[in-house]
């Protein structure tokens, strides 16, 4: 009897210790979130959705590479560990800036010893709050990013000392004015044509951005720090390019869904760690390629508008059928990593010119004309052995929607099958999209 009593006491002690630890850890991030001004109650609803969504979309995939565990880890800790890292950096006097577009040069942020986080938002969760301050007929990406800030439910937004906007589209351009009431926004004027004088103007914008970053961080940007920033960003581009090159094999050793996740994580993870882990994954994929057996899945290219975390909708639908996404000609795809910045140069001006030259090679529909994008799509269709192209259009993104006509015409001339899918973040039209993709796959 005495022994049983002792055991029970021991058990109670263990249980209460476990409970204590548990409460401490839970409280830890909550304390951090409170400090950042997060609406805890609303944020908790977001936290509740993620594990199930991730489980349903990602963990139901068969035979994933083991190297994906790192990226699983990053997702699981998306509002935890990385936010803690940002907070620790800020506690040492460091600055955090948020960006929304692949035109904002990471190199400058790195050279000023700040941390940059990509903030484009890909969840329906934020749309409702965004619609409180924005018209409804605007793209879901803008509504979501606005909603994430005004609703106080994104710890990344809350960690930012400054946001860096740009003039890629009318919706975003005007959204910065509203966001500026919440947090300082610096806007870079992106030219809309690619003449020599536009490239020069972009170089000037980069210089102004550098001054802004120096002012914010108190760190002078030197030739050496800028060159180091370029090297770091190039290393990320090289690693992503290596990953994409592996997808050219038949079959691709990795799903489109997994690559999409990696691209999305590239925007906010620590760049050095990201490169190390991605290269480890690629080593594993090198081995997989040797053992790959082609199951005859249709190889699909997605072109068009970006897919911000956690927008996994279209990939999920395509790969739920007998098809595999093998390349994304999007901002969360090739546009992010193609073309490295030249690391040579004696002066700041030399390096800024190298930056401007590289960034002005990005083929975004905000430019007129934008024939370079068509050339890219045709080139990738060949390189990645693509069977069909899906031109993905976030609802109300006018530049890409208008450009579809020319994309379709050019691809048809080359006998490359193409369809356009216009959608947002909701699940309502998933069935309809599935039917259309199914029909498209049967046709090609």
């Amino acid at each position: 009897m005495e022994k049983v009593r002792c055991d029970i006491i021991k058990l109670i002690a263990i249980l209460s210790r476990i409970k204590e630890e548990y409460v401490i850890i839970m409280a830890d991030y909550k304390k951090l979130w409170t400090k950042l001004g997060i609406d805890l109650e609303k944020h908790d609803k977001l936290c509740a959705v993620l594990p199930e969504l991730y489980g349903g979309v990602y963990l139901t995939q068969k035979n994933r590479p083991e190297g994906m565990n790192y990226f699983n880890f990053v997702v699981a800790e998306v509002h935890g560990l990385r936010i803690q890292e940002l907070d620790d950096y800020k506690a040492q006097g460091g600055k955090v800036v948020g960006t929304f577009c692949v035109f904002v040069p990471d190199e400058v942020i790195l050279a000023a010893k700040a941390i940059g986080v990509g903030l484009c938002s890909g969840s329906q969760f934020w749309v409702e709050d965004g619609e409180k301050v924005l018209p409804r007929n605007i793209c879901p990406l803008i509504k979501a990013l606005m909603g994430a800030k005004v609703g106080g439910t994104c710890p990344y937004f809350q960690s930012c000392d400054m946001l860096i906007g740009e003039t890629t589209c009318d919706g975003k351009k005007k959204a910065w004015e509203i966001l500026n009431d919440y947090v300082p926004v610096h806007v870079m004027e992106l030219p809309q044509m690619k003449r020599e004088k536009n490239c020069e103007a972009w170089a000037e914008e980069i210089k102004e951005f550098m001054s802004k970053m120096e002012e914010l961080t108190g760190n002078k940007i030197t030739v050496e720090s800028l060159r180091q920033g370029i090297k770091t960003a190039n290393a990320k581009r090289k690693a992503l390019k290596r990953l994409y090159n592996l997808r050219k094999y038949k079959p691709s050793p990795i799903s489109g869904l997994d690559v999409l996740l990696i691209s999305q994580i590239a925007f906010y993870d620590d760049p050095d760690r990201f490169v190390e882990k991605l290269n480890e994954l690629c080593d594993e994929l090198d081995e997989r390629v040797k053992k790959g057996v082609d199951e005859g899945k249709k190889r699909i290219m997605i072109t068009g508008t970006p897919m911000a975390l956690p927008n996994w909708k279209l990939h999920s639908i395509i790969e739920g059928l007998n098809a595999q996404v093998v390349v994304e000609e999007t901002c969360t795809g090739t546009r992010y990593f193609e073309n490295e910045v030249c690391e040579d140069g004696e002066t700041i001006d030399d390096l800024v010119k190298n930056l401007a030259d590289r960034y002005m090679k990005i083929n975004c529909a905000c430019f007129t004309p934008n024939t370079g994008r068509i050339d890219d799509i045709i080139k990738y269709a060949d390189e990645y052995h693509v069977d069909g192209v899906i031109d993905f259009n976030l609802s109300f993104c006018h530049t890409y929607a208008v450009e579809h006509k020319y994309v379709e015409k050019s691809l048809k001339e080359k006998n490359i099958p193409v369809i356009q899918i216009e959608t947002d973040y909701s699940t309502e039209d998933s069935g309809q999209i599935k039917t259309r993709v199914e029909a498209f796959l049967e046709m090609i």
Partner: protein
Amino acid sequence: MDNKRYYILFPSHTEGMKMEKLLKENKLKYTIVPTPREISSCCGISIMYSKKDEEKIKVLAQNCNVKTLGFHCVDKKIVNPYL
């Protein structure tokens, strides 16, 4: 169909990382996952494992002093909301 999935919870991600290292060294299959809401409302990592390895993992955790918040099972069908 069996919808049971098995998870190890941790008091912190560092303990989870320790466990991951052990599983890797011992060539045991695992997946790092966001903690299912059914087990805990705490955002953060868990490790999903195969039931057949449970005893081995428990011994490893004990021998190497990895702190866990227990071994849990969730019996629920996982569905992709887009399909």
